[in-house]
């Protein structure tokens, strides 16, 4: 077997039942490794969120998957082929971060052009409905608001009815209502068996949408799982928060097992502990007056900060 064949087989093993993926991809720019042996698999019908601090390699990973840049080493496969193949591109839609798109063309004209690139595009009316472009089809792109522009770019990404959709920071510049509207459309895409890869700065967005979250930093995967798993991983290191009114002293609380923080705001105490159940049991035994009890897991945001802390 040639080394190329071996690499192909390794890629097939890593990407497995996925429809697309990266296998051991390294991308070097001079001395900088934007991606460092990154492997990533996209499965049919899932929404995968790629999270990471700025410069983690999110956009580089997407650009490799789109065949816009070639990896220094490793393999990229999309629908079993090189992403630069027209047959692969015909099944991909992409919403990238773009500074400017031709502003004097009307929304309908942009959509018409992108539809023509694909063998079986969505009907124009369908794109307008899904991307919520009703009433602005006849407007020039440059005259739209930030959120409307993002919706047009989303419309271009779905114009070809692709099976795999890349969304790089799709809701930047959208108000909450528009953002939730787009989330709904992304869920509908996944229900129709489409695969979505999403990068975002809004962790709430990953939490609300993603079946799976991959956290990367410095071009490497540092954590992977469902949003709940990512949160519990972080909870494993930082713990959950117990908030209540209590007469117990700080000394008593600090002495309990696994307690990592005790904070007071007026009469409210917040205790952080990994073994939250055991700590709570002790607290209830020692103080019959505990009131307004609340136990919370860290938000995805805290989990994310915890995971990337000190590594960036």
């Amino acid at each position: 077997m040639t080394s190329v064949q071996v690499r192909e087989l390794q890629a097939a093993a890593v990407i497995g039942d996925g429809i697309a993926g990266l296998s051991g991809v390294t991308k070097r720019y001079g001395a900088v490794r934007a991606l460092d042996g990154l492997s990533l698999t996209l499965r049919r019908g899932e929404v995968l969120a790629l999270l990471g601090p700025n410069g983690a390699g999110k956009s580089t990973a997407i650009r490799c998957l789109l065949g816009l840049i070639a990896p220094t080493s490793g393999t990229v496969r999309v629908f079993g082929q090189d992403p630069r193949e027209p047959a692969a591109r015909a099944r991909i839609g992409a919403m990238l971060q773009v500074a400017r798109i031709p502003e004097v063309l009307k929304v309908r004209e942009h959509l018409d052009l992108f539809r023509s690139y694909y063998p079986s595009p969505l009907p124009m009316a369908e794109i307008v409905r899904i991307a919520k472009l009703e009433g602005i089809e006849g407007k020039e792109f440059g005259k739209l608001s930030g959120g409307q522009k993002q919706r047009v770019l989303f419309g271009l990404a779905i114009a070809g009815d692709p099976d795999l959709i890349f969304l790089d920071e799709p809701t930047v510049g959208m108000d909450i209502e528009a953002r939730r509207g787009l989330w709904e459309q992304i869920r509908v895409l996944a229900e129709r068996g489409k695969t979505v890869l999403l990068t975002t700065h809004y962790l709430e967005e990953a939490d609300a949408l993603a079946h799976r979250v991959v956290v990367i930093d410095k071009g490497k995967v540092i954590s992977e799982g469902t949003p709940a798993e990512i949160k519990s991983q972080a909870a494993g290191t930082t713990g959950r928060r117990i908030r209540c009114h209590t007469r117990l002293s700080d000394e008593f609380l600090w002495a309990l097992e696994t307690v990592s923080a005790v904070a007071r705001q007026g009469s409210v105490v917040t205790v952080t502990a990994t073994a939250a159940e055991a700590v709570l049991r002790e607290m209830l035994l020692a103080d019959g007056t505990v009131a307004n009890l609340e136990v919370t897991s860290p938000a995805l945001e805290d989990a994310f900060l915890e995971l990337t802390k000190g590594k960036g």
Partner: protein
Amino acid sequence: MASVAAVPELAPVGNVGRIFVKETKYEFVKLMRTRSFSASVIGFPVMFYLLFGVANKHAYSDNVHIAKYMLGGYAVFGLVGAALFGIGVGLAMERASGWLEVKRASPMPPQAYLAAKCASAVAFGLIIVSILTTLGIALGGVSLSLREFAMMLGLTVVGAIAFASMGLLLALVIPANAAPGIVNLIYLPMSFLSGLWVPIYMLPKWLQAVAPVLPTYHLVQLMLSVFGYQQRSVSLLSHWVGLGGFTMLTLGASWLIFNRSQQNA
């Protein structure tokens, strides 16, 4: 391997002919609606021709009708401007803004993108030359046979393609934010030194010596040969070789630079 999703049996991209047509249509519409482009690439040659060509309605020099001679010069000036600004500046901007990347990520054939830019440059060239010719006939007392006009249009197509390749090269090498300035710094002196504004034989001898290395000089001599106004001392073949060689050179350089940037990407 069997688990990898099978590719369905369909044409890999949309109808290629239709993509070329739509890409060209929207490129042209975009340039037309971009007033800063359309008004200046059409307006400047028209204004200059009115000032320096039509105004010489009654001027003759050795059987050369100056208004007709300048029609050849400003036709070349206009079509070269449309190609250099439309492609050189347009493509540089679309590359820098990330729009080209969005298009490259789609199944659009890259040739369609380049062909649309080139066809739009040709269309603008034909429009500019037609307007200048109309002005020359209507206001400048220029007499032109239908055959001469047809040959001018033919040379406009050839010239637009040659300078489209120069626009492509510029778009690949110059930074987008400096593109309009740099293109002007090349375009304006090159036009002057090639005799597009002032008949070449009126320039100082030492300046005339520069002309043969400029592609615009070869194109304007070919354009003037339609009227029999070219420099008699130089063969037409050498102008075809000069223009053709320049086109090959810029296309080859563009290809090399593009491939190198792909490898480094």
